[in-house]
């Protein structure tokens, strides 16, 4: 008994040692895959070999932080999946999500992101999200060329099938659409809702008879004399006229960026960063519907990670999309608060102009032997904590940024003055 004691101890130690090695191996099985790396400028890109980190050791795209699945499946995509295109997408999404998460953890230093459990990413999902059933029937409505971040949820207590899901990112399939054919379609029109939102403010201006003057300037000369123009104004109002303008105008082609519209969202790095930003800010800004402030904030953080002026721009064979310009000179107008303007680059350009102003100003402080007044990314990050899905640009976003500076700027007065100057340049007054 006495002699065996040290032997047992020794054995115990060895066992402990080997088991810890084994668990470490289970946690991380890094593997190299080709992913999309954009050229610094333009629509070109290359496939580059990158190591995917934190993968579980089961030859699937499931890791510590992400699980990449196909459609409505719950099992992760296998490395040997029959569709090589799907594997390519999975690897690309996994890699760029890792970049985004690392940024939020290491640079932004977000406690919320650090605390997030694994999230599920769905590729090639055509279904629409249902807040009570998770997925709407695929036959009901099909989505293409888009990406969403969906909130966590569960089926109601009365439901037969009990379902529960966490935050997820969905990438819908790509579909090449002929731009001109879209003109006459109605049905699942993504701007439909938006135009209803536009209608009211437009009608408000109608009373001042200003809309007519405005239209005169906006619509081409030959169109102005047409019957559609006067009829539309009389019976349908200005919104209908917008449809009509597109339908009738033969010269509208130059408005279109290309004959076809398509976008494979899972292959565009900035879109992946954008969707992850929604997840990272979902502690205060719920992703239930898109609002210009939430979209702009996600655009901003995507832009700091991607560091390119034209976000989401065309990518050869992957996307024909026209990008958002973070350097846009557009000035503020209340119409920009409309939900339909979630796609405008205005909010991004406000935040980005702030970033450039603070960069310049911090540099001049350094020349005077001063510390930076504030780390601008932290300023924006703290501002998101004062915002939610009901926040607008002119009242809430600007005030959140100012208050964030009050709390975080070394010299709040100059910082707030600088922000006010940026707002002024962006036409808020």
């Amino acid at each position: 008994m006495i002699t065996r004691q040290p032997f047992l101890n020794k054995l115990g130690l060895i066992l402990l040692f080997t088991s810890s090695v084994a668990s470490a191996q289970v946690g991380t099985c890094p593997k190299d895959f080709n992913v999309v790396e954009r050229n610094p400028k333009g629509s070109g890109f290359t496939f580059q070999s990158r190591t995917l980190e934190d993968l579980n050791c089961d030859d699937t795209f499931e890791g510590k932080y992400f699980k990449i699945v196909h459609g409505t499946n719950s099992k992760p995509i296998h490395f040997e999946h029959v569709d090589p295109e799907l594997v390519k997408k999975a690897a690309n999404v996994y890699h760029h999500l890792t970049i985004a998460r690392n940024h939020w953890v290491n640079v932004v230093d977000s406690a919320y992101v650090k605390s997030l459990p694994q999230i599920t990413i769905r590729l090639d999902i055509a279904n629409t999200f249902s807040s009570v059933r998770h997925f709407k029937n695929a036959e009901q409505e099909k989505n293409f060329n888009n990406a969403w971040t969906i909130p966590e949820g569960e089926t109601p207590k009365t439901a037969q099938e009990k379902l529960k899901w966490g935050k997820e990112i969905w990438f819908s399939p790509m579909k090449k659409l002929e731009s001109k054919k879209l003109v006459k379609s109605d049905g699942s029109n993504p701007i439909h809702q938006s135009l209803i939102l536009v209608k009211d403010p437009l009608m408000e201006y109608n009373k001042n008879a200003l809309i007519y003057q405005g239209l005169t300037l906006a619509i081409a000369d030959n169109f102005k004399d047409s019957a559609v123009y006067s009829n539309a104004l009389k019976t349908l109002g200005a919104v209908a006229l917008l449809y009509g303008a597109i339908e009738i105008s033969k010269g509208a082609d130059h408005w279109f960026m290309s004959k076809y519209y398509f976008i494979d969202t899972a292959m565009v790095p900035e879109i992946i960063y954008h969707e992850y930003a929604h997840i990272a800010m979902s502690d205060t800004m719920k992703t239930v519907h898109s609002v210009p402030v939430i979209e702009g904030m996600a655009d901003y953080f995507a832009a700091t990670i991607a560091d390119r002026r034209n976000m989401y721009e065309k990518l050869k064979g992957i996307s024909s999309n026209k990008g958002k310009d973070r350097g846009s000179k557009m000035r503020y107008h209340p119409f920009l608060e409309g939900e339909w303007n979630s796609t405008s680059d205005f909010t991004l350009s406000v935040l980005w102009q702030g970033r450039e102003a603070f960069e310049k100003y911090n540099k001049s402080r350094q020349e005077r032997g001063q510390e930076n007044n504030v780390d601008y990314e932290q300023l924006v990050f703290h501002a998101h904590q004062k915002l939610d899905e009901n926040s607008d640009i002119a009242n809430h976003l600007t005030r959140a940024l100012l208050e964030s500076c009050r709390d975080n700027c070394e010299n709040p007065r100059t910082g707030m003055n600088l922000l006010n100057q940026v707002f002024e340049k962006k036409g808020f007054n």
Partner: protein
Amino acid sequence: MKKVIMAAILCSNFLNFGAQAANLNLLYNDKEVTIAGFNSKEKVRISAAYQDPKFNNQIKNLFYQSVQDYLRSDNLKCEFRIPNFFENYLHKAKLNYSKADILEHYKMLRVNNFIDDILYESVRDITVDLFAMRDLENLNRTEKGISKVKAKLLEVNDINEHYENFRKFPDENSVCVYQEFIHLKNIIFSKDNKLSQDTNDFKYLNGHALYNKVIDDNTFRKLEYLRTQSTITKRELWLQDYFKIIFNAKNKMIPEKKLYVYRDFDKENKFSTEKASRKERLTRRKLLYLKYDETQIIQLATVLQNASRRMGSDPDTRSSAPAIIQSFEVTLQNGKRETYVEKHELDPQSQYVYARRMLRKDVLNLQMMDSFNKLKITYEDVVMAALETGYINFEDIEFVITYDDLWNPTKSRQQKMFGFLFDVAGYGSFVLPPPWNIAAAIALGVTEGIVESKFETGADHDNPATIFE
């Protein structure tokens, strides 16, 4: 002469610092980044000549002590006391104390920011006068008086009365040289019985007083020196007034929560030492000292403090969002009355603009006060006063100085309009496929048209959602 109003807000006795020891640290220059009194080459030479910080500090302490002694004396118009005290202290400390040495020391004091330009130039000029008059005192020479009788001039100028205080040259103790000289200069009448603008009248009276032995040779020489060579005739600011501002306004409004401490003084904003305007030979800071007294400077700075509070950026104040409240009492058809109240909270940009509009109004209100009568307040004066009182720091200047763009626009309307034009090509994104992004673009084109046409009709609103523009 500047009137002092609202003196209640400043409780010290301006005229006599004797009771309490003045905070001499306020003499330290933290306002003027560049030197106006001599060039940069001279600055380099002085720095090289005075390399021992211990020695420099000793000189500084002796000088500050001299100022302290001067401030304790009864009559602050006796400005010669400062170089006199200083000379004595140097002598006692067994240091060189010649005129040249003292003038060099002053430069060292300025280079090391122990004093500012205003004090430097004043003590330099006073010292030059002091030594010049000593030289004249020792000149054993008989002066020639003027015997000729200008009856009309002598009728309106009583020599005996005018030169009463010069029968014995002012002792710089109970009677001060500069004060008496300026007094004399200001009571001379010309032959048409108006205050004399002709320096020849003064010259004649000096000569005639000597001839009549009302004054002696020494006094005559000194008076002629003061009349012709001294800077005193051009001085616009008495040391007494300078020190009142230094001890009662300078750095009196530094926020509790200090936001900015400069690290490299030479690289800070040069606003205060720039010429006030193209026509103005004075720097902005000197102009402030000449134009206003300590109370007025505090009042000017308070205008900016109020604006800062309204903006929500005052370091020591938490400001709410401003709101417009209006109540309405409506008489209904049945004769009953119904009251309701409307409250509109301002968005941050409206708040920023509102604060600037109010700032302008506050300046206007100040301008209408009696104490500011005949003084044309400029916005630069307000900024300079805020800097002097320490309410704003060097870093704030470049931001604060643009507040008046609202009413002194530097941008033409054309430029503003140009900046407004929507970049239609900037619309569209990965979420909205065409043509809906195009519809959005055209809708914005409409928007643009509306706003443009508003410009045409004369209304000057950029953002129709704001109240204050």
